[in-house]
C-alpha cells in the first residue's frame, strides 16, 4: 500500500461516520435512539439489513471459498427469500402493532417476564461473542498481510464503531450502513471488473467459464439428496430456511434494523428488497472467486496464500522442505498452464483426454498445497484463520492498481464497522430494555434510559474488543462463532413460533420447553457429528413439541393463556 491507498482508506472509513454524526446531531428521545425516526425509508432499511448480515467474512472469505471449493455455497442462501416472506407476513406486523423496542418484549407480552429474559439472555450470550469475532476475523488477516499491529487493527476497526454507535444509536447505524454498503457494492463491482480485465487474453470469457466449470468451480445447484454432501439445494432450502427465519425474525441485531423508521410498509419493502437481491449478490461474490481461480491458472499463485505464516515456517528450519514443494508446485503450474492453452487447439475427440489430464494436474497442485499446510503445522506455525481467507486479499494487494487497493481495504473495514455497529446497537438496546429497565430502574425518565442504553452500548463495545484481543488464544474461534449461532438460534426461534402459532400454550411450559430444547442441542453438539445447520431445526422443533406436552401435563390448568 502506498500513500494514495492510505488516503483513500482513511477518507472512506472516516467520512461516512462523520456524515452520520452530522445527520444525527442533537439529543434524541428513547424512541428515536432505539428505533430511529420516520425519515428512514425502505432503501436505507434494505441496505442496512444487507450490511448487518454480510459482515467482513462475506467479502474476505467468500471469494476464497469459491477459489477452493467452487460456488456451491450459494445454495445455503436458498431458504432466505422464503424466510423473509414469513418474517414480513407474521413477525413484522406483530412487532409494529406492539410498538416494541426489542423482539424479546414480545415474549413478555405473549408469555411472561422469565421467557422474555431467557430469549434476551440467549441472544446476548451468542451475539456478545459474535461481535468480538466480527472485529477479530478481518483484523487477523489484514494485520498479517499489511504488517499492522493486531491490537492496533482491532482498535482501529472497533474504536471508531463504538464512538459513533454510542452517540447516534439506531439512526446513525442505519445511515452509515447505507453508505458503507454502497462503498462495499461499488468496491466489489470494481474488483470483479479488474479480475475480468486481468484474465488471460488467450481465452474468451465464455471459454474461461467453461474451463472453470470443468475444473469443478461452477456447480451452483445440486439436487442430490446425499446427506454427506455439504451444500445441496435441499439442505440450503430447509436448513437455510430455519436459520434465516431465526436470524431475521428473532435476532435483535436484524429486528432493530427493519423496525427503524416505524412504518410497516417500509419495514416490509426493506426485507423484500433483501429477498430479491441476496442470492444474486452472493452469486457474484462467489463467481469473483472462481474468476480469480482462473486468473491464477495463467499467473503463478503462491503455493500457500498465507505468506507471513509460510515465511515463519521457512525461517524456523523448514525452508528446504518448503522449497522442494515450491519447485514441484511451479513445475505442475507450468504444465497446467500449457495444458489449458493447448485446449484451444485440440480436436473435439481429443478434448476429453486433455480435460482429464488438466484435472489430474489440478489435483496434484491441490495435494502440494495440502502438503505445504502439513509442514506449517509441523513447524508449529498454526494459522488462526483459513488459508482461503487470504486468496482475495492477496489478489487485491498484488493485482489491483494503487488507489483501488485502499478502496478495497476500506470495503473490508466498512463491512466490519457496519456489522459491528448493528450488533453493538442491539446488545446495548436489549440490555437496557429487557434487563435494566424492568429489573433495576422500572420508573426512570426517558432521558435516563437513553443514557443507560449509551453506557451499555459502550460497555458491549469494550467487551467485543476484549474478545477480539484474546481471540488468538482460542483455536478455531471463527468456526466456533459460526457454530455458536446455530446452537442457540433454534430454541430462540421456537419461543417465538410457539407464541405465534400455539394459541393455548402459556409462559412456564414454553420457558421450560426452551430450557430443555437448549439442553438437548448442547448434548447433541457434545456427543454427535450432526451438521450444525440442523441444530436450528432440532432446537425449534423441540420447543414446539415439548411446550404443548408440558402444558397438558405438568402445567395443566395452572395459568390462563395470554391474549396477545
Amino acid at each position, binding site marked *: 500500500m502506498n500513500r494514495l491507498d492510505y488516503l483513500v482508506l482513511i477518507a472512506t472509513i472516516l467520512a461516512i461516520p462523520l456524515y452520520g454524526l452530522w445527520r444525527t446531531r442533537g439529543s434524541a428521545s428513547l424512541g428515536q435512539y432505539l428505533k430511529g425516526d420516520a425519515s428512514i425509508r425502505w432503501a436505507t432499511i434494505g441496505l442496512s439489513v444487507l450490511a448487518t448480515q454480510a459482515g467482513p467474512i462475506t467479502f474476505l472469505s467468500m471469494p476464497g471459498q469459491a477459489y477452493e471449493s467452487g460456488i456451491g455455497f*450459494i445454495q445455503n442462501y*436458498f431458504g432466505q*427469500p*422464503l424466510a*423473509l*416472506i414469513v418474517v*414480513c*407476513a*407474521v413477525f413484522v*406486523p*406483530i412487532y*409494529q*402493532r406492539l410498538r416494541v423496542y426489542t423482539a424479546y418484549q414480545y415474549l413478555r407480552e405473549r408469555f411472561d417476564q422469565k421467557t422474555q429474559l431467557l430469549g434476551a439472555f440467549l441472544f446476548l450470550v451468542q451475539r456478545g461473542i459474535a461481535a468480538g469475532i466480527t472485529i477479530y476475523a478481518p483484523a487477523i488477516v489484514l494485520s498479517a498481510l499489511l504488517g499492522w499491529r493486531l491490537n492496533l487493527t482491532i482498535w482501529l476497526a472497533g474504536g471508531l464503531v463504538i464512538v459513533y454507535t454510542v452517540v447516534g444509536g439506531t439512526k446513525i447505524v442505519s445511515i452509515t450502513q447505507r453508505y458503507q454498503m454502497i462503498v462495499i457494492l461499488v468496491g466489489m463491482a470494481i474488483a470483479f471488473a479488474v479480475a475480468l480485465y486481468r484474465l488471460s487474453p488467450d481465452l474468451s470469457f465464455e471459454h474461461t*467459464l*467453461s474451463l*472453470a*466449470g*470443468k475444473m*469443478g468451480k*461452477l*456447480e*451452483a*445447484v*445440486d439436487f442430490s439428496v446425499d446427506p454427506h454432501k455439504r451444500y445441496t*439445494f435441499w439442505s440450503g432450502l430447509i436448513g437455510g430456511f430455519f436459520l434465516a427465519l431465526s436470524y431475521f425474525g428473532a435476532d435483535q441485531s436484524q429486528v432493530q434494523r427493519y423496525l427503524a423508521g416505524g412504518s*410497516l410498509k417500509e419495514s*416490509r419493502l426493506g426485507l*423484500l428488497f433483501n*429477498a*430479491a437481491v441476496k*442470492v*444474486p449478490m452472493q*452469486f457474484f461474490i462467489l463467481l469473483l472467486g472462481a474468476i480469480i481461480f482462473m486468473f491464477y491458472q495463467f499467473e503463478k499463485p503462491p503455493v500457500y496464500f498465507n505468506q507471513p505464516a509460510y515465511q515463519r515456517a521457512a525461517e524456523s528450519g523448514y525452508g528446504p522442505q518448503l522449497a522442494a514443494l515450491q519447485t514441484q508446485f511451479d513445475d505442475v503450474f507450468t504444465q497446467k498452464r500449457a495444458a489449458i492453452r493447448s485446449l484451444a487447439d485440440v480436436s473435439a475427440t481429443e478434448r476429453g483426454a486433455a480435460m482429464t489430464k488438466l484435472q489430474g494436474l489440478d489435483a496434484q497442485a491441490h495435494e502440494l498445497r495440502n502438503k505445504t499446510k502439513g509442514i506449517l503445522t509441523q513447524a508449529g506455525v498454526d494459522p488462526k484463520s483459513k488459508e482461503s481467507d487470504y486468496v482475495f486479499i492477496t489478489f487485491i494487494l498484488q493485482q489491483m492498481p494503487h488507489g483501488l487497493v485502499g478502496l478495497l481495504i476500506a470495503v473490508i473495514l466498512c463491512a466490519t464497522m457496519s456489522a459491528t455497529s448493528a450488533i453493538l446497537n442491539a446488545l446495548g438496546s436489549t440490555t437496557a430494555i429487557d434487563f435494566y429497565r424492568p429489573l433495576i430502574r422500572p420508573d426512570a425518565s426517558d432521558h435516563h434510559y437513553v443514557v443507560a442504553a449509551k453506557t451499555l452500548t459502550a460497555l458491549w463495545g469494550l467487551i467485543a474488543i476484549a474478545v477480539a484481543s484474546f481471540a488468538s488464544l482460542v483455536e478455531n474461534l471463527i468456526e466456533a462463532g459460526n457454530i455458536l449461532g446455530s446452537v442457540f438460534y433454534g430454541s430462540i426461534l421456537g419461543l417465538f413460533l410457539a407464541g*405465534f402459532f400455539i394459541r393455548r400454550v402459556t409462559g412456564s411450559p414454553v420457558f421450560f420447553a426452551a430450557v430443555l430444547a437448549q439442553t438437548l442441542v448442547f448434548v447433541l453438539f457434545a456427543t454427535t457429528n450432526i451438521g450444525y445447520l440442523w441444530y436450528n431445526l432440532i432446537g425449534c422443533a423441540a420447543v414446539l413439541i415439548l411446550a404443548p406436552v408440558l402444558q397438558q401435563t405438568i402445567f395443566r390448568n395452572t395459568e390462563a393463556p395470554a391474549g396477545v
Partner: protein
Amino acid sequence: MNAGNDEPEARSWRKAYGLTLSLFAMEVVLLYLFTIRFS
C-alpha cells in the same frame, strides 16, 4: 396474525410476496441453467 390490514392492502402484499417468490424461483432456474451450461 393479521395486524389490522384492510383487505385491499393485504391483497397487494400477497401479490408482492408472490412476485418475490417468482423472482426467487427464476433465480434458481437461471443458476441451474448456468450449472448445466458450464459444468
